[in-house]
């Protein structure tokens, strides 16, 4: 292979320098890194807010903040985490960076639209920031913006909802771009069953983004109209029905849950076979389950509304559909575990994080079934059990998949290796802290502690205190993880093209990749997970001595 210059040194379109080469770039890799910077900023803001919430709850009564501030902080935590971290994290960062490479092409189909999506994302974030400091301050409605409260309250709901509208637009256009790229720019020799699973999961996600996002857009438009023109569509006084808001909201926001988790599952499907040195178990089953989740996940929204006053028949149907979604998810978990069975497993930080993912995601999935069943759901509805459940899935699932992806593709994106030791320490602390943080919440929920409350009865104090301790351990772990990654820039250990022994196309190009990804036409394997040619161990490849 000839010596090439990476995408850091050559701009696309050519001839641009300095900051301009970044801000006006059409290069999907640079855009991926720009998303990384923005998303990480929001992640740490929201992580800090979450930690403050749990600190407030560690003791009864006022600990560090007033009730009004508490309400705004949990709303802000939710809005940022959902719209500015979990939804864009994996598709916008790793999807942008890797999807074209995994498909054997030079860029996404609409590079300029891709840049535009990034600006929309930044504008959405900016709007959220402005709504913090302008007028009556940030909303205290919760990220769900339920009417009638969101219509009546004086806080900046309009601006925040506009921010979410713009962010939705950005996410939808990214999805549109990925679907078109998938169909039109895939390497001509790559058949459907030769596509890496991460790209497949992004494809399924992209469809959900296109299908569902416009529904939330129109719902937010209606909230704004309701606030400024009192159109009365959700106002019982004027013949409207607030329940319809909930339907419209969850018609997007439940599929959005799959926008969040599907790419994470794709990441895990890439990592597990590489470090098991064994072909992925049930490739086709994983592909079909991704598409199955995308379809079935769009039909279960009303399981958020069992107690809202729906007919028993609807409750029954939505409960049944909810159980059906568990099947494709379980197929994936089974396939990952079966891939490791009799594999030649080599432990690395990405694999450890993937294992933590499987464990936490399974707990999240199983507690989800408790909530999907009508009887138990009535008992734990709107309690800390729900909070714990969706954090197991969103954070234990997508969050840890994001960390795993970061550790897996870090050498590819920046061309350098990080220290394994601190990555292990950070991951383990984060994983243990996570359990100490969220397991007490499951118990608190079963005991009846409601979510989003500022204060609680004395019997809940022990659980809340323990959860707070867990939160600090978890955050410490995450900080160690990121400091370790950041330190890899200082003592640059150059990463080879394929440090892990991966077989998908991104490992066939230099680290970091050249501007058009491939110097020569890539040679496609018959199957993306054929490890028969990989004999080196990871430690030999990376000079890592742990």
């Amino acid at each position, binding site marked *: 292979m000839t010596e090439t210059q990476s995408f850091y040194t050559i701009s696309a379109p050519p001839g641009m320098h300095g900051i301009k080469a970044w801000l006006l770039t059409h290069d999907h890799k640079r855009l991926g890194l720009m998303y990384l910077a923005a998303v990480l900023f929001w992640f740490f803001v929201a992580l800090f807010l979450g930690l403050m919430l749990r600190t407030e709850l560690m003791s009864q009564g006022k600990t560090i903040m007033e009730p009004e501030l508490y309400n705004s902080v949990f709303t802000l935590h939710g809005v940022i985490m959902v719209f500015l971290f979990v939804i864009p994290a994996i598709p916008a960062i790793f999807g942008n960076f890797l999807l074209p490479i995994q498909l054997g092409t030079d860029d996404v189909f609409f590079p300029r639209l891709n840049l535009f999506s990034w600006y929309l994302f930044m504008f959405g974030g900016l709007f959220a920031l402005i709504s913090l400091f302008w007028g009556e301050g940030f909303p205290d409605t919760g990220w769900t913006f339920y009417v009638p409260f969101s219509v009546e309250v004086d806080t900046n709901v309009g601006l925040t909802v506009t921010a979410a509208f713009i962010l939705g637009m950005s996410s939808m256009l990214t999805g549109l771009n990925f679907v078109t790229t998938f169909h039109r720019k895939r390497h001509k020799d790559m058949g459907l069953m030769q596509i890496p699973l991460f790209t497949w999961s992004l494809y399924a996600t992209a469809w959900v983004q296109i299908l569902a996002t416009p*529904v939330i857009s129109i719902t937010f438009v209606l909230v704004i109209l309701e606030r400024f023109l009192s159109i009365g569509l959700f106002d019982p006084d004027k013949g409207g029905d607030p329940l319809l808001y909930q339907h419209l909201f969850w018609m997007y926001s439940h599929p959005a849950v799959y926008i969040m988790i599907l790419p994470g599952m794709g990441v895990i499907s890439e990592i597990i076979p590489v470090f098991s040195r064994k072909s992925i178990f049930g490739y086709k089953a994983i592909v079909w389950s991704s598409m199955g989740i995308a379809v079935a996940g769009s039909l279960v929204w009303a399981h958020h509304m069992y107690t809202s006053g729906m007919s028993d028949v609807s409750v029954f149907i939505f409960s049944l559909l909810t159980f059906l979604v568990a099947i494709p998810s379980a197929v994936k978990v089974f396939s990952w575990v079966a891939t490791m069975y009799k594999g030649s497993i080599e432990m690395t930080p990405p694999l450890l994080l993937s294992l933590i993912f499987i464990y936490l995601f399974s707990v999240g999935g199983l507690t989800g079934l408790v909530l999907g069943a009508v009887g138990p759901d009535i008992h734990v509805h709107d309690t800390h059990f729900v909070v714990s459940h969706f954090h197991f899935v969103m954070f234990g699932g997508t969050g840890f998949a994001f960390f795993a992806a970061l550790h897996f593709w870090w050498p590819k994106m920046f061309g350098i290796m990080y220290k394994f030791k601190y990555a292990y320490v950070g991951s383990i602390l984060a994983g243990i802290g996570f359990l100490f943080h969220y397991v007490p919440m499951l118990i608190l929920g079963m005991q009846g502690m409601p979510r989003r409350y500022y204060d609680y009865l004395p019997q809940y104090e022990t659980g809340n205190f323990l959860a707070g301790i867990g939160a600090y351990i978890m955050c410490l772990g995450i900080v160690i993880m990121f400091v370790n990654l950041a330190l890899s820039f200082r003592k640059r250990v150059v990463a080879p093209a394929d440090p892990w022994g991966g077989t998908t196309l991104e490992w066939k190009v230099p680290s970091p990749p050249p501007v058009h990804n491939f110097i020569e036409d890539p040679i496609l394997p018959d199957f993306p997970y054929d490890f028969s040619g990989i004999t080196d161990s990871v430690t030999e490849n990376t000079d890592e001595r742990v």
Partner: protein
Amino acid sequence: MHSQIDKTGIRIGMWLFLYSEIILFGGLFVLYAAYFHRYPEYFADGGKELNRIIGSANTLVLLISSFTVAASITAIQRNAKKKAVGFLLFSLLCGVIFLVNKYFEWGAKIHHDIYPNSETLVNGEPGISIFFSLYYVITGLHGLHVIIGMVLLSVSLVCILSGKVTAERFSLLDNSGLYWHLVDLIWIFVFPLFYLVL
């Protein structure tokens, strides 16, 4: 790697976008369906308040403009630049006529104190109020799309005149045309839902 422009790919992207636009209106049609189920007789009463003649005229205007946009695309493919420009100008004129009609329709309604949160509606039957709220939201959003469509057609027009859209490269005009057809298509559904509801 693809030196040739991939027209099919651009079209797929545009179709996906149009699809998302349909879903956007779909949310409103869901609301319409739910409230129509709840207040069928008030919706019929509300429908009688609307002027069917203006509504039909607007439908006709949009249908004709859709045809002329399609004609303009065919013209540019056959290198008949002048014809293409003429057809586009006519389509834009249709858009203006539609908006002027809409302006007078809304104006008359507002003059009769029928608009969201007006005295008449607030004190009247809830079903009527819902009907007119939906009317204003849906036709308003549709009107916005008419304006966006006209902007797209105007941009295409300028590009034809400056030679950026030609017989070989007409994707911009093609996609603007698709958007205009979408605007027309949505109106085809909006029109009976409000003007012809019984």
